[in-house]
């Protein structure tokens, strides 16, 4: 077992142990905090598929996060207000998480497809900026679109349901989110080792080579971006359910920046990098926020230190240079 595998196992153990510790220590809020970390981790795992495997520096992942969130918000809002989702067809809203997840995944995947087709015409810095700009475009649209609350957002009074669970109990909702995260991590692990993963990995490093063996690197990247967007969209639906609320802040460019921060401080391309990064961020946010109103100065300094001195993020610092998929 190498050091990275040991670290991954330790992280896994910590995630499983959190509820027990929280109940034992009489800090039930820790579970909510951990749920937040797990959902952020899921969003970042999504970005890591595009960023780590595919080399696509997307500064617009808040779009997928927000689309997933709004999928939840809109469906649940219609269910809660007993208004049909589509008037003509009398399709009702729903409070069922599996259905909401499906809609969130499909709609964020579609958003990624549309943005990807346009953005992947470019590369490098252009790609970063065009994804950022598409994010702004969606953000401004959502703010000024009056139908679903605009900047006020949508409030859902009761968390959506999952068959067999009481999602209002923090531990149960945490467990559900953790299961989703683990399932997606497993998917990510398989993906990296699949024929598609091989092609994507090569498309990131030497696109011209992929082309000369008869494959289309742009299409490979596009599919990766769609998968990435779908995962981040699923995280968005869960995040909205955690807060029982969705608003345009989920679509803001700062959100995109934060998702990217999770990936980078954890370790780009590392399987557990996003998990470690999101966990660290939530811990920092919680404790630094108590230390000073100006806590973001310290957050900034820590980020700088990671970039300048910590090649490969936290996982890289602990486990050395080698990449997980190899």
């Amino acid at each position, binding site marked *: 077992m190498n050091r990275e595998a040991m670290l991954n196992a330790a992280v896994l153990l910590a995630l499983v142990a959190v509820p027990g510790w929280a109940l034992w220590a009489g800090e039930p809020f820790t579970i909510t905090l951990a749920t937040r970390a797990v959902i952020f981790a899921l969003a970042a795992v999504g970005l890591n598929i595009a960023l780590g495997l595919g080399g696509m520096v997307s500064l617009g992942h808040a779009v997928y996060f927000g689309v997933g969130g709004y999928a939840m918000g809109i469906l649940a809002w219609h269910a809660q207000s007993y208004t049909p989702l589509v008037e003509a067809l009398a399709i009702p809203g729903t409070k069922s998480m599996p259905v909401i997840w499906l809609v969130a995944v499909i709609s964020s995947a579609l958003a990624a497809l549309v943005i990807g087709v346009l953005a992947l015409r470019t590369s490098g810095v252009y790609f970063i900026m065009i994804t950022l*700009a598409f994010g702004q475009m969606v953000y401004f649209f959502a703010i000024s679109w009056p139908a679903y609350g605009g900047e006020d957002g949508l409030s859902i009074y009761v968390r959506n349901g999952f068959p067999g669970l009481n999602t209002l109990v923090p531990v149960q909702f945490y467990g559900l989110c953790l299961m989703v995260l683990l399932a997606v991590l497993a998917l990510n692990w398989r993906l990296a080792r699949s024929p598609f993963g091989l092609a994507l990995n090569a498309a990131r490093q030497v696109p011209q080579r992929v082309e000369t063996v008869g494959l289309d690197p742009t299409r490979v990247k596009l599919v990766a971006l769609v998968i990435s967007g779908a995962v981040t969209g699923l995280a968005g639906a869960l995040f909205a359910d955690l807060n029982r609320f969705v608003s345009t802040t989920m679509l803001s460019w700062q959100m995109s920046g934060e998702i990217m921060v999770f990936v980078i401080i954890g370790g780009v391309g590392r399987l557990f990098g996003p998990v470690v990064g999101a966990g660290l961020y939530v811990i920092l946010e919680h404790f630094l926020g108590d230390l000073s109103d100006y806590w973001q100065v310290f957050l900034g300094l820590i980020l700088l230190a990671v970039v300048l001195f910590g090649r490969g993020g936290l996982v890289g610092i602990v486990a050395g240079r080698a990449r997980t998929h190899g």
Partner: protein
Amino acid sequence: MSPILIAEQVLNGLQFGVMLFLMAAGLTLIFGVMGLINLAHGSLYMIGAFAAAAVAGATGSFLLALGAALVAAALAGAIVELVVIRRLYDKDHLDQVLATFALILIFSEGTRWLFGSFPLYLDIPDWLSGPVTLPGGIQYPLYRLALICVGLLVALGLWLLITRTRVGIRIRAGENDREMIAALGVDIGKLYTLVFALGAGLAGLAGALVGAIQSVQVGMGEPVLILAFVVIVIGGIGSIKGALVGALLVGLTDTLGGIFLPELFKLFTDDAAGATATGSAFASMAIYILMAAVLVWRPTGLYGAKA
């Protein structure tokens, strides 16, 4: 809608575009020469505005305030370049994005720490205030005319600097071939610091000029930064000419879109308030749609080097 109103709106679009150019020129120069993507450029804009507000408050002189903005932003730029940015040149764009994102956090909250959370006061000087009457009877604020002139003068100055001076030759050489310029015996570290400080100074100047008619507050830089990104993507990254053309295009699209789109929507519906809201929603997306269109047509922007 009268021709006078349209002419006035075109002037407004020009003025907005010219200010965007001051931001975009620095960004594109820094990218062209050093290959660096700098998200913290908006912070330098903010530093310029705060420095100007502080100096104007202390001395009452607007010109001194402008000078202070230029110097403070350039100085901040030089320091940041020496301490942080310099270590980022050989890293990939991803690291640059994260590091400069971190700089935004530090600058924004640091400024709030120093100056407090309340917006600062900065006003246009008496000798530039009030409207003037232009040929055709357009009433137009003198200060905005001055902004257009300053912006165009800076564009001219940059063009002269790059085409006619030794520094300019080195900058162009640096864009084309980093090794060659090192081989020529130019101190590349110094050149980079200089270029970064120049870009920062321009951003600071823009911040001070705009701050006089807007609100000098923490976070004022980021919306402008994103627009400046749109500008240089449209113009082609690294091209000063592209930045100018892109800035004017974005300025005009944003201003005229905001006016005409709601009017356009009113033609199709009787619900005037609804049309205004919908039209405004689309107007706020107009520049991004412009950018997407340009990139579909030319993936490296109007004047960008072919990939």
